[in-house]
């Protein structure tokens, strides 16, 4: 059989096979880098999560491998459940508001001829480093001279006895506002791009049928936009669940435990108590939560794709 092949066929066999090898060769650096920066640290962290490891204790006093003890202690800690609750509220409210605001603004901007300057301005908060955003808002929320505090007091929305970040009831909303301020532009941009890429035919048909704008929005825009919506929601939810920078800059989890999100709880275990083992265990719990949530959302996304 082999002998019957002509030169071109033989050549194509070698080319295709070496192409195959070459493909892997090209991928190899990426695989190595990925293994080094994600796979290895994850395995290492799992090892830490299953060990008694405290930076501030002498090596000989550490118990080494302790199985699931770290997980058990964490799950018994009421502060963990509080952090979980705070993270949940933060994620749902922040991403929820960001989505509706983003969609509304994207719909407004859709028909308008926006120039580059306007688009850049909209993107500005998103470009800033979260820690810088946090510090800037610390001044806006400052208890005596902060601009936001001043406005709230002038409008009689806040008394002189308290301040946005100082009271248990207003600290979490204040932090959520900062997240909304920073990340709504991301939703605007992605949703706007999605809107502009929608096919025009269904709209023309709806126009002929004299459908109301609301009906068009509900029956055409939303279903067509659904894949885009799900993708931005997956990205934003994953981000919001592991929020750290702005909380650290604004409140460090306080007052009391009002803004004590999971990342802050991990940070405190790692860098105030030096309990790296426990901190790694909570990190794994956070990882599982994010994985479960994103798997659900990605499944929804693929189902939507199948339908459309």
């Amino acid at each position, binding site marked *: 059989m082999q002998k019957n092949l002509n030169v071109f066929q033989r050549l194509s066999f070698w080319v295709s096979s070496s192409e195959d090898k070459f493909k892997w060769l090209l991928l190899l650096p990426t695989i190595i880098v990925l293994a080094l920066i994600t796979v290895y640290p994850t395995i290492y962290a799992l090892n830490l999560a299953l060990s008694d490891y405290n930076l*501030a204790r002498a090596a000989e006093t550490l118990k080494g491998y302790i199985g699931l003890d770290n997980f058990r202690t964490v799950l018994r800690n009421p502060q963990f459940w509080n952090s979980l609750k705070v993270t949940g509220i933060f994620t749902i409210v922040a991403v929820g508001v960001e989505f509706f605001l983003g969609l509304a603004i994207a719909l407004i901007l859709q028909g308008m001829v926006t120039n580059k300057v306007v688009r850049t301005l909209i993107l500005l908060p998103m470009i800033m480093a979260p820690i810088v955003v946090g510090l800037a808002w610390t001044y806006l929320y400052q*208890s*005596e001279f902060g601009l936001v505090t001043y406005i709230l007091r002038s409008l009689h929305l806040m008394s*002189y006895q308290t*301040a946005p970040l*100082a009271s248990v009831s207003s600290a979490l909303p204040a932090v959520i506002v900062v997240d909304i301020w920073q990340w709504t532009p991301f939703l605007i941009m992605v949703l706007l791009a999605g809107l502009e890429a929608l096919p025009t035919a269904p709209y023309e048909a709806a126009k002929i049928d004299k459908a109301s704008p609301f009906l068009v929005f509900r029956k055409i825009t939303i279903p067509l936009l659904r894949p885009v919506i799900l993708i931005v929601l997956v990205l934003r939810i994953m981000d919001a669940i592991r929020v750290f920078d702005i909380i650290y800059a604004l409140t*460090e989890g*306080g*007052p009391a435990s009002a803004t004590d999100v999971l990342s802050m709880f991990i940070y405190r275990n790692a860098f105030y108590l*030096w309990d790296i083992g426990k901190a790694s265990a909570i990190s794994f719990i956070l990882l599982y939560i994010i994985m479960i949530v994103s798997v659900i959302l990605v499944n929804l996304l693929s189902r939507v794709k199948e339908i459309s």
Partner: protein
Amino acid sequence: MKRNSFLGLVLIIGLILAFNSVAFGWSLEEAAKPYAGTTLRFITETTPPSYWIEEALPEFEQATGIKVIVERQAHPHLEEKALMDFAAGTGIYDVFNFDYSWTGKYVKAGYIVPLEPFIDNPELADPNNNLEDFYPRMWEGTMWDGKAYGYPFDSVIQYLFWNKKIFDDHGVAGPPKTPDEWMDSMQKLNNPPQLYGTGMMAKRHLSVVCEWLCVLWAFQGELWDENYQVTLNDENGIKATEFYKKMADYAPPGVTTWTWDDVNTALQQGRVAQSVQWDENYGSMEDPEESAVVGQMRYAPVPSYGDPVSHYGGSSLGIPTSSKNKEAAFLFIQWATSYDVQLRGVGKGSSPTRRSIYQIPELREKYPSFVATDAAADTTGWRPRIPEWDAMVEALALELNSVIAGTKTVEEALNTSAKEIDSILTEAGYK
């Protein structure tokens, strides 16, 4: 006889001179010769004395040929950086500014070395460096199991800063001596939003624990007794914490987010009439560029129902076990904590740890805090120095902050803290 005694005298004088010439022969330049060209990394806190050392550094570098890189970090991040280095044994840092309450933790983990081998080495130790001049309390803060692990660097005593002009303008006599007088003065001076009766460092942070400890001691309370039975939630503890909670009524809004930094700004701007604060900040009150209260600030012990109360929070310079330049590091520590360097930095950030400096009449005249620190230095209260203290700070900071933020009652918060501290002590085998 006369001739013999004369000869004897000559011999003795000769011997003294000979010894002295050895003593006088010591110089930093000579001692540092073998280490010229070394680079030291000094990790320290963003406190006034660190800034002063950075300013004075060129003279050390010139004299020794040793280069020093100063890395300043805020209180919690200082430990983050240091512990990572020490645990990994990388040896990045050669000089470490450590809080006295960390001594046990670092010694037990084997992260810092005792200084005796260096102090006893005549080639390194300056014979004119009088170690007895360090306040005994501060020296003790560097000790563990009878060995010294550092030279006291930063005095840091917490007591009452009170603005005499504000007190006088409002016809309130100061300083308050008892907690009753103290609360009374807060109430009388409180005139929001222009002026508040007191500042507070009530953030969920080490700061709230430090300030509350002063009040606890003022009410004759203690964290635990000599048998490690937790007593912080006894009658005195409850009264003290009720008092601490009431202070917030006369404090600016937002003190649940304040640490010592915010208190300092409020004192400098004359926004608060008084506040418990660390003495190392005395210089910033007198700095016309930053302070609106130059010449107005006075200093007193925390008002108490018993003996005067102040709170020692100082730090020392030590050498990490992982350092590869220990001898050069010792020379730097000796220089940075020397009488001369501490004295020249007065008013520029230096927060001396030597009694003789606080007793210079001109300085006592110019800086009223010197009189207060000198008086307080021998009687200060301590935070526990056991390695488990970090975990207790975590528990106390959350509970005390919750009291001020209004989410927990005093009893609830103290009982929870007591339970947690008790279990930490039991687990660690103290009882």
